[in-house]
């Protein structure tokens, strides 16, 4: 996927003024937050599950090499193959070679964030393969020639009317008006494609060392048709996805569905272990797992390790006010929202993704909802520190900070300036709010600035001391 993180500011500005997007986002945020809250209220053990999951994941990560080796051995034992890819380019080359070897012409895909990360679709299409996204949301954005804007709801930025127009354009016929009609239309279109697929590519929510299984969860059943009807099943997964046992997968699955869609489980949870057995009447003849590093091993060392606990549930972005205002596309790459503000700079570069962590308001909601207790606000701050250490902050900001520092080192001057500022700002306020302010339009267009009372904290404090 093309990296457009440098366009964050113009894209965010554009998003704020796109009425369709704003409508879609408002609807989505309400739905996601409410459903999750309801699902969690039913489970008094939720906090205990979070604790256990976060501790377990740390344990696994500290022995990651061991679990990956065991996973590989079990995949071989069930008749499959594991391929290791150091980076995106290698991962693409491996998948492409597997498709060529199978003489494939059509590739069906279940939803996979790693395949977005490694830019798989473009590479397959460039090789002349027909690539069909089968998750309804992914199918919609594929038709629209857009990247997904949310990790679990790829087409969350589209309204029903936009989907109807898109379908009419690609499938013919008049635009449909209801959701059931749209879903049925996609079902019929994709049904025929599933049955002529050569290779089925899925992601993996988990890999299980004990059995060599890759686990996918879906609500539509598309990932299952993808892998059951193809001749070759290829799984693309990050190396951090491995867990030791079936019981471990269960622990994380209890958190995943509730955090992602507010359901107590998704409709389909599938453990796939190898190709079809000798007497099986259906299923793929080959099973491959492509383990993708692409910078993950580096994250194991240093402060970023907790980020590898992420189970890609999307709760952090659903609760993020910045994501809620600008949507996923503004972030300019595969991973949006809070998790993306940490991951994207680490994957594509602290400078290339400079704006992402700096757009954060550090309100802390993401960290509070993360099912594996990733300290997202701390990590976002850590990314900013790293950017500062590398001297990446823009010159204007550096000059402003230097100026501020010089003032702050002279208390008398600082307090004098402060007294001046609060008095000035107080005159701009109407009923305690500042609705417009020169030089800060971008900010005040969207919300009011609370007006100060006209006296500084220190003045008030001293006054209070005198009174008592």
């Amino acid at each position, binding site marked *: 996927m093309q990296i457009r993180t440098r366009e964050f500011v113009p894209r965010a500005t554009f998003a704020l003024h796109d009425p369709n997007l704003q409508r879609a986002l408002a609807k989505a945020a309400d739905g996601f937050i409410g459903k999750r809250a309801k699902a969690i209220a039913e489970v008094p053990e939720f906090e205990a599950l979070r604790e256990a999951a976060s501790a377990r994941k740390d344990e696994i990560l500290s022995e*990651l090499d061991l679990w990956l*080796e065991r996973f590989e051995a079990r995949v071989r034992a069930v008749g499959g193959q594991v391929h290791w890819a150091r980076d995106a380019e290698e991962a693409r080359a491996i998948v492409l070679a597997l498709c060529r070897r199978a003489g494939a012409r059509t590739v069906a895909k279940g939803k996979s964030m790693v395949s977005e990360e490694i830019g798989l679709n473009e590479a397959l299409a460039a090789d002349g393969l027909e690539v069909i996204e089968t998750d309804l949301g992914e199918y919609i954005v594929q038709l629209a020639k857009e990247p997904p804007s949310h990790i679990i709801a790829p087409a969350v930025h589209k309204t*029903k009317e936009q989907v109807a127009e898109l379908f009419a354009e690609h499938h013919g016929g008049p635009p449909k008006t209801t959701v059931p009609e749209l879903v049925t239309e996609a079902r019929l279109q994709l049904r025929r494609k599933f049955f002529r697929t050569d290779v089925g590519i899925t992601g993996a929510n988990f890999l299980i060392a004990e059995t060599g299984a890759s686990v996918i969860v879906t609500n539509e059943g598309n990932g299952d048709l993808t892998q059951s009807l193809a001749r070759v099943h290829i799984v693309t997964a990050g190396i951090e996805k491995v867990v030791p046992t*079936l019981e471990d997968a269960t622990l994380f699955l209890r958190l995943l569905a509730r955090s992602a869609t507010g359901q107590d*489980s998704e409709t*389909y949870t599938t453990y*796939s272990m*190898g190709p079809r*057995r000798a007497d099986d009447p259906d299923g793929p003849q080959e099973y491959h797992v492509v383990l993708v590093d692409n910078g993950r*091993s580096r994250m194991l060392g240093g402060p970023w390790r907790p980020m590898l606990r992420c189970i890609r549930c999307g709760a952090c972005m659903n609760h993020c006010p910045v994501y809620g205002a600008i949507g996923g596309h503004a972030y300019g790459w595969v991973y949006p929202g809070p998790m993306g503000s940490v991951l994207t700079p680490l994957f594509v570069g602290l400078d290339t993704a400079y704006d992402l962590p700096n757009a954060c308001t550090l309100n802390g909601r993401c960290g509070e909802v993360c099912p594996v207790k990733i300290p997202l606000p701390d990590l976002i701050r850590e990314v900013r520190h790293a950017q500062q250490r590398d001297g990446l902050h823009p010159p204007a900001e550096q000059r402003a900070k230097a100026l501020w520092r010089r003032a702050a080192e002279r208390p008398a001057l600082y307090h004098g300036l402060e007294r001046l500022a609060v008095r000035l700002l107080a005159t701009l306020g109407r009923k305690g709010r500042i609705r417009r302010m020169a030089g800060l339009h971008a900010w005040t267009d969207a919300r009011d600035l609370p007006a100060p009372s006209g006296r500084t904290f220190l003045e008030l404090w001293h006054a209070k001391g005198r009174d008592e």
Partner: protein
Amino acid sequence: MNEPDPLDPTLAARRRDTVLGAIRRNLGRDAAPPAPEFPLPPVHPRITVPDEDLVERWRRRWEARGGTSALVPTKASAVEHLIAWCREHDLPPPTHAARPLLELPWPADWPLDPGPAGIDTQSAVSLAFAGIAEVGNLAFLSGPESPVTHLFVPDNHFILLDAAAIVRHFEDVWQRLRQHLGTSDADWRERLPRTINFVAGPSRTGDVEQTIQLGAHGPRRVHVVIFSE
């Protein structure tokens, strides 16, 4: 010059060593620690399932997800129930079934095929390996007797479930699986099916404006017949 083949075993081994090496370096150690035998399944927190009737709880959860269910006295009586159900709901009779179900007293005009489902398959009958009361899921094992396509291709899916196979938690399924597959002289993992499938009601999607719609790619209607022998 030809491009190197990414599937070449020497190259593949080098890539593997690099990735594992990078992991170890970043974890701050030289080689993998000696591998002990597979640890016992860890014990993690579970979701409390009150000590109520598990069948009752399973049905409540299942139906909350848009599935339907019925209780019948015996496995054989499931046939009569399904005949009536299909008539009542105007559904096409099943054309495919899991092999172990072929021995049931099906009507003569319901010829059932134990082979995989095809693009025109409208309706199939399967046998569940377990039901999970915790959340109203069903578990299936794929195999020569139970094609996995039966679960996902038909519009209508009928499932027979033994009341005694309804367990409390997912962990109970794993324990059953280990017992079911293991033999006195072989590890259970030698006999793993290609897939273990958990199903919770009809296929659904929320991808258009978060509006839940049933029947995305998999079955639109899933009806479970619970029997006790």
